[in-house]
């Protein structure tokens, strides 16, 4: 299970990388492995301001549907257009080519977890 040290995490299994005023968000290796083959990433919130903890999209695996929650308040700037045709990138490279959205950060992070804390949460 790959849980990189340089990222922050949520208890809902998103990762977030904050660089300056921009945050890149995706789902963790643990999340993609639990979901199985991801066949559709449904995000219609580009341009919207979304509160911390609110749903910004949905990820669909063959068997299950899972909501995506904002790790930090912000405005969705762009989504990863590669996922439109290649949602399996989320399985193959969840922290790289499988990123989901970039967000303009509007609030300060409150309850993000470190890699060590996230590993403890998932029992790895």
């Amino acid at each position, binding site marked *: 299970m790959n849980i990189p040290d340089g990222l922050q995490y949520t208890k809902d299994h998103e990762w977030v990388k904050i660089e300056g005023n921009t945050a890149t968000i995706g789902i963790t290796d643990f999340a993609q492995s639990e979901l*199985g083959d991801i*066949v*559709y990433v449904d995000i219609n919130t580009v341009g919207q301001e979304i509160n911390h903890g609110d749903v910004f999209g*949905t990820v*669909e*695996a*063959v*068997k299950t549907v899972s909501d995506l929650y904002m790790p930090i308040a912000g405005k969705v700037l762009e989504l990863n257009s590669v996922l439109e045709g290649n949602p399996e990138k989320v399985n193959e490279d969840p922290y790289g080519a499988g990123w989901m959205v970039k967000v303009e950060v509007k609030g300060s992070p409150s309850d993000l977890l470190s890699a060590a804390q996230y590993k403890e949460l998932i029992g790895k």
Partner: protein
Amino acid sequence: MEIKNIPLNDLHTQLGGKMVPFAGYNMPVRYSSDIEEHMAVRNSVGVFDVSHMGEFTLKGPNALDLIQRVTSNDASKLIDGQAQYSCLPNETGGIIDDLIVYKIKDNDYLLVVNASNIDKDWNWISKFNTKGAEMKNISDDICLFAVQGPKGVATLQKLTSTDLSTIKYYHFTIGELAGVKDVILSNTGYTGAGGFEVYVHKSSAELIWKKIFEAGAEFNIKPIGLGARDTLRLEMGFCLYGNDIDDTTSPIEAGLGWITKFTKDFTNSAAIKQQKEAGVKRKLVGFKMIDKGIPRHDYPIKDAAGNIIGKVTSGTQSPMLSIGIGLGYVTTENASPGTDIFIEVRGKALKAQVQKLPLV
């Protein structure tokens, strides 16, 4: 409720199976990837351990009479070595369970039922057993492996002297497999991919499993989880009890008229016959998505005007088609193949079209 383990639980864990509770048993939902496993079955061969399924033996001079009274299909038509898909209607228009009835010989039958319904079916059938058929629940002793796919027969043929090509669909024989006697070799399965199902006593199950994998190595045989089992059966439009059929759906509504035979009386047969003649208000249909989206259990189905006309009972992304597919009940006037329907996915009405089964 206590979750049980199937006999080869440890083996599946070693093989990387992700075990999840299903129908009261820890079951492998996937080993690697749902899509890879699905395609292995469609293109070559895969093995499902579906040992959670229930098996009852019904024996004695009153066995057939009991089967005839509780099931919808006509088991008197079975010859020795023939199996039949059937269902147990309830008294209020619904279905207790769907099942397969195997005729081993006169006065000797095997009923294979869904794991989630073992106790319910046992109690239901027992209630009608007023003439003393000998019933035995052997579910805990029997392992069931579904060896499915176009290379399924070639795989098993290496392990038996029985000529499997002579066993027709929904027929079976009791023979030797990998040196183990009294194995049921049944030309059945729930994938539409061809292949056999193998019923074996749990004491020989691990040996048989390993021999099957040795025999299938040249075909790149894979263990297959319940995830792919669901997508495979859904592509074929086969019903899953608890999703597409249940205590409230009639066999006629569910498109199971073909296993509902009025050549005999059975539970609620008069009402079901009347329903068949008068017609039903809703029907189970298969559909494919036209808009991008994936239908899921319980999503509303609407017509073009936005009226609710039914709901989805099973849905997924088809690994073969790479589009959303599903089954659902719709009003009869919307049930003809070619009818445009709309699936409500997260508040949006997405276009789909009713299709003939199978969907692939």
